[in-house]
C-alpha cells in the first residue's frame, strides 16, 4: 500500500507535466484540426531556456529558489511563445487551404529542423541542470516503507493547478477565450462576425507554447537532465494523453496526461521499466482503435 501510494504520487507529478504539454496539442487540433508535431520541440526549447535561465539566475546571485523559479518560468514562457508564434507564422499559416496532410508534413519538417538547430547551437551532450529545490517530508510510514513527498513534487503539482485554473478561466471567461471557441466551432462564421481568425490562431499557438515551456521548466527541475531529443518522446506521450482524454477537450488533456503518467509509472514499478514507452504507445493504439474520440471527446461528424 505504501509502495502504491508512493508510485501514485510520482505518477501524478509526471502526469501534470504531460498534461501541460497535451493542452497545446488539443487546443491546436481543436482550432485548425492539425497535429502540431513540432509541439514537443517547443517543450524541449522551453526546457533549454529554463536551464539557461537558472544558470543566469545563479550568476546574478539570485539565491532564493522561489524567486528564481518564478523568474525562469516567466522567461521560458515568454521566449518559448515566440517559437510557437514563429512556427505557426512561417510553417503552418501559408499552408491553410493546402491539401490535408501538408501541415502535418510541414510540422515534421519543423520538428526535425528545431531538434537539429538546438543540437547544433547547444551541443548533443545531455545537460545536467543541477538541483534547484531539494528536500521533502514523510507523508506516512507503513511496514517500514516511508512515503515521501518532495517539495519539488508539490511545486510541480501546484504550478500545474494554478496554470490550469488560470487557463480554464481564460478560455471560459475572457474575450480571447470566446474568440478561440468561436473559431473552433466555425472558422468562417467567426471571421464573418469580425473575429480576427489569424490572430486567434496565433494566440492559440502562443498559449500552447507557453504551457509547454512551463512543462519544460518543470521537467528540467524534476529530472535534472535534458538533451535536444527529449521533445520527441515527451511530445508523443503528451499527444497520446490528448487523444486519450479526447482531442479538442481541455479537461480531457489534463485527465489524459494524468492517466499516461499513471500508466507509465505503474508499468515501470510493477512490470518492467524497459517497456514503459511501449506501454504508452500501446495505449495510444488501443484508444484510437476502441474509442477514437477519447474519454471526454465529442464524436466527430463527417460532413461532405
Amino acid at each position, binding site marked *: 500500500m505504501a509502495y502504491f501510494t508512493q508510485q501514485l504520487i510520482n505518477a501524478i507529478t509526471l502526469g501534470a507535466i504531460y498534461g501541460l504539454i497535451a493542452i497545446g496539442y488539443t487546443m491546436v487540433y481543436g482550432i485548425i484540426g492539425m497535429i502540431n508535431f513540432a509541439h514537443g520541440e517547443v517543450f524541449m526549447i522551453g526546457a533549454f531556456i529554463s536551464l539557461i535561465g537558472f544558470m543566469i539566475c545563479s550568476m546574478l546571485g539570485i539565491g532564493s529558489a522561489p524567486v528564481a523559479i518564478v523568474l525562469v518560468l516567466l522567461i521560458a514562457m515568454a521566449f518559448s511563445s515566440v517559437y510557437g508564434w514563429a512556427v505557426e507564422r512561417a510553417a503552418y499559416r501559408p499552408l491553410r487551404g493546402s491539401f490535408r*496532410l501538408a501541415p502535418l508534413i510541414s510540422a515534421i519538417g519543423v520538428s526535425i529542423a528545431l531538434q537539429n538547430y538546438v543540437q547544433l547551437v547547444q551541443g548533443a551532450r545531455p545537460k545536467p541542470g543541477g538541483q534547484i529545490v531539494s528536500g521533502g517530508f514523510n507523508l506516512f510510514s507503513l511496514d517500514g516503507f516511508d512515503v515521501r513527498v518532495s517539495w519539488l513534487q508539490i511545486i510541480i503539482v501546484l504550478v500545474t493547478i494554478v496554470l490550469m485554473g488560470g487557463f480554464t478561466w481564460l478560455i471560459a471567461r475572457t474575450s480571447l477565450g470566446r474568440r478561440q471557441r468561436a473559431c473552433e466551432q466555425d472558422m468562417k462564421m467567426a471571421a464573418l462576425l469580425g473575429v480576427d481568425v489569424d490572430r486567434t490562431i496565433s494566440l492559440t499557438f502562443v498559449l500552447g507554447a507557453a504551457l509547454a515551456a512551463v512543462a519544460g521548466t518543470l521537467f528540467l527541475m524534476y529530472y535534472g537532465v535534458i538533451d535536444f531529443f527529449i521533445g520527441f518522446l515527451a511530445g508523443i506521450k503528451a499527444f497520446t494523453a490528448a487523444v486519450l482524454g479526447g482531442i479538442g477537450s481541455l479537461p480531457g488533456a489534463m485527465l489524459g496526461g494524468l492517466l499516461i503518467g499513471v500508466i507509465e509509472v505503474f508499468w515501470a514499478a510493477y512490470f518492467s521499466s524497459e517497456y514503459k514507452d511501449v506501454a504508452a504507445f500501446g495505449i495510444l493504439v488501443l484508444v484510437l482503435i476502441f474509442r477514437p474520440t477519447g474519454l471526454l471527446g465529442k464524436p466527430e461528424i463527417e460532413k461532405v
Partner: protein
Amino acid sequence: MRDPRLPNMPGTSMLKDAALTALVAAALGIFIVGFRTVDVGSRTGLAFDYHFADLGVAIVVIFLGRLGLSLAAMGLRWPAIALGVAMIAAGASPMKLPSGFLHWFVALGGVLLVIRAVWPWADQAIHAAARTPTGRVVDKIGTEWVGRGLGWVLLGLAVVMPFTPFADQKTMDLGVLILTYVMLGWGLNIVVGLAGLLDLGYVAFYAVGAYAYALLSTQHGLGFWAVLPLAGMFAATFGILLGFPVLRLRGDYLAIVTLGFGEIIRLVIINWYDFTNGPAGIGSIPGPTLFGAVFAETAPAGGQTVSEMLGIPFHGIHRLIFLYYIILLLALVTNIFTQRMRRLPVGRAWEALREDETACKALGINPTNTKLTAFAVGAMFAGFAGSFFAAKQRFISPESFTFIESAIILSIVVLGGMGSQIGVVLAAVLLIGLPEWFRELGNYRMLAFGLAMVLIMVYRPRGLIGHREPSIRLHPVASGGSG
C-alpha cells in the same frame, strides 16, 4: 507577380517590417544561440560560452534579407538584386566573422534573395515561351519526355553505371544507397502517394525485413534468396496486423499510430535481448550468393567463390556491383508492380480513395480492405529492401531504424511529388546523393533537411514533379504521360 500580402509599402513601413522580423529573430536566438552551455572539466557542471557576436551578425542578415524580400515583392528588383549580390560578396569575402557557418549563412541568404528577385522574370519568360505555338509543342514534348523518356534514360544510365570509369568503391556504395532509398520511396509511394495514407512508421517494416533475414541466416543458415520472399511476407503480415485495426482511422490519427508502431518495433528490438541481441545488434550476416557462390577471397568449406566460378581474379568491387544489380532489380520490380497495380481495379480504388473516401464508400468500395492491400503491399517492399539492407551491411542494429529514417523516406516521396515514380528517383538522388557528396555539411544536413520539408510544403506542395492525377479519368484532361 507581387506578393498580395505585401502591398505597396512606403519605405518606413518596410523598415519597420524588417525591424520586427529582426526583433523576432533576436527573441528566438537570444537564449538558445547567445548562451551556449558547455561542460566544465570533470565536474558535472555547465558554463556559458557566449555567442552574441554570431547572433548579432545573424540578426543583421535577417534584417537585410527581409528588407530585400520586401523590395523584391514590391517589384523593386534591382535594389533587391544589388543587396543579394552584396550579401553573397560579404559571405565569400575573407572578412572576419565569428564562425565559418556565418559566411555560409550570409552567402546563402544573398543567393536566396537574388533567386527571389529574379524569379518573376524567369516565371514570365517561361510562361511567355509556353504560350507561343512552338512553345506549346516543346512543352508537350517536355512533359512527355519527363514522363516516359527520362525514365528510360535514367534506367539506361543505372544499368551501365558499374562499367563506366567512375565506378569506384565510393560511387558504387553511393549508387547502392541511392537505389535502396529509391526502392523504399517507391514502396512508400504506394501507401502515401497512391492510397493517400500517411505512414510515419514505414521503417518498422524495413526493420522487420532486415531482422527476418539477419535471424534466419545467422541462426538457421538460410540463404538470401530463400529469405527474400519470406521477409516480404513477414513484413506484409505485420502490415496487415497493424493495418487491420487502425486503417479505419482518419488520416492524421493513422500517421501518429504508424509512428507509434514504428517506435514500438524499435523498442522491442532494443529490449528483447534473447531474440534480437538488443542494442548490440546482429553481426556477421552472410551476403547474397550468386548461384550458390559467395563473394569472398577464399571459399568456405565445400563452397565456391564467384571469382573461381567465373574464372576471373578476385576483386572487392565485384561484390558491390552484384549488390548494385540486386537492388536495381528489386527497385525495378517495385516500380513495375506499382505501374501494373495502378491499372488494376484495386489500384484505381487506391487512387479513388485518396481523392474522396466518402464517394468511394457510396460506390461500394470497402475502404478498409482497399487501404489494407496498399498497406500490406507497401510493407512487403519495405521487407524486401530490409533484407537487402541486412545482407549488404552484414551488421544491423536498432540504430538503423529510427524515426528519422521514416521521415527521410517520406520526404523523398513528398519532394518527388506524391504518386510520381520518376519524382522519387530525382528526390532520392537529391536528398541522399547530394548530402553524401557534400560531407562537410555534416550536422547542418538534417537542419537543412527539415527546413527543406517545410519550404517544399509552402512553395511546391505538389513536389518537384507534381503528379497526383488519377491514372484513369472519366473525362481525360490534356496532360502529360503517366509518370
